[in-house]
């Protein structure tokens, strides 16, 4: 029976590959866009402007305080009302990018705030502009704090991408959901789905751990 089911599943091999591909593509695009946006938001948030800082803070809180599933439903079914026509893939990218950006924003803010003020003042005294200060003094040192949780966030992103299956995107989880209705062996099908995610996520988890160890050892050393 199991052998027969494995054969049946093997028959869906192209579908599974498409699902895995969708998961990878979704995660990759949202990862890149989310990082860019997240860094931008983080830098803006630590700017001096109370209004911008507050607005970003409120938005980040909104995203962190509601389930991603609800966000996806909102984006997919409501945005078109505001005139923005969306297919499931675009909605998924927008939702994931937004989610990633908000969490990365907080990580970046923590990183920026961790840089000793002495450094910032020295940079000011040296006549560097805000942008130069950021790029040459603050961010490089902030990266030490930022990198481990950033990689961790990428893992979370890949896992959260599974939720887009709820709006019908054929990602790896959705493929499992489709196949299990034809091959009613939930243990087998979703074990394989889990394996797929594991193969993609585990290397990143190892990387995050390695980074944490290395950064943790170097933490506290401030060169003046």
């Amino acid at each position: 029976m199991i052998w027969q089911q494995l054969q049946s599943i093997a028959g869906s091999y192209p579908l599974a590959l498409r699902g895995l591909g969708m998961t990878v593509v979704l995660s990759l695009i949202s990862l890149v866009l989310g990082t860019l946006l997240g860094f931008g938001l983080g830098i803006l948030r630590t700017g001096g402007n109370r209004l911008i800082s507050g607005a970003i803070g409120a938005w980040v809180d909104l995203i962190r305080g509601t389930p991603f599933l609800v966000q996806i439903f909102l984006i997919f079914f409501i945005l078109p009302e505001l005139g923005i026509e969306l297919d499931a893939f675009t909605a998924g990218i927008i939702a994931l990018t937004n989610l990633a950006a908000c969490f990365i924003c907080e990580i970046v803010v923590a990183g920026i705030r961790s840089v000793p003020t002495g450094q910032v003042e020295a940079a000011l005294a040296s006549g560097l502009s805000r942008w130069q200060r950021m790029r040459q003094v603050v961010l490089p040192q902030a990266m030490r704090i930022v990198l481990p949780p950033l990689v961790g966030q990428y893992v979370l992103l890949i896992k959260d991408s599974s939720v887009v299956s709820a709006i019908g995107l054929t990602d790896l989880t959705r493929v499992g959901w489709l196949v299990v209705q034809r091959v009613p062996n939930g243990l087998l099908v979703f074990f394989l789905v889990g394996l797929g995610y594991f193969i993609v996520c585990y290397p990143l988890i190892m990387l995050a751990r390695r980074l944490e160890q290395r950064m943790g050892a170097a933490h506290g050393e401030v060169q003046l």
Partner: protein
Amino acid sequence: MLENFSFRTIVEYLPLFGQGLVTTVWLSALSFAGALAVGIVLAAMNLQRGRLFRVPAKAYIDAVRATPLLAQLYFLYFGLPRLGLILPEFVVGILALSLNSGAYVAEIIRAGILSIPRGQVEAGVASGMTYVQRMRLVILPQAFKVTIPPLLGQAIVLVKDSALLSLISVAELTRAGQLLASDRFMPAEGFITIAAFYLLLYYGLKGLAALSGRWLGLAGART
């Protein structure tokens, strides 16, 4: 749909939303209790010096952390009946949430215990305490203080994760929003309302975290 945003329908469905909210709260509470139980066991296993318990515990934690909750939920939902276990959906949901969050709780506890300075442990040893006494009187009380904020953070994550249970037909808060979409074709009214309710829970838990931070004397404790 947005032009005629119907507050009247929302009010009409308020009892349903209320029921969903209550269900979400007790589901999350039970799952959190389960997660604590699972997490404590895993953390204890992970802190053992011998390989026998440490390896399976670590393997389990890694497996759970590298796979999505939704896949784990479907694994249990579609898989348990094959083992002959016919459980009501909400039980499967609580099980999935507990087993998933338990792995994260284990890591939080482990980090908390490992954060106790060696000096404390050595002082305990020097005072002639046994392992159990050391744990009970020195390490655990301090670890407790440190782990409360991240544990509350995990509780917040759990409440958000509980939304996935709507996909296996548990009648919780998100499902209430879906019903408004499928019965009355008003997804906007449905999902915006439940988002508001979730925010209520979020700020409530955050408030709790801030209060507990102050109560435990942790300056500037943030989740």
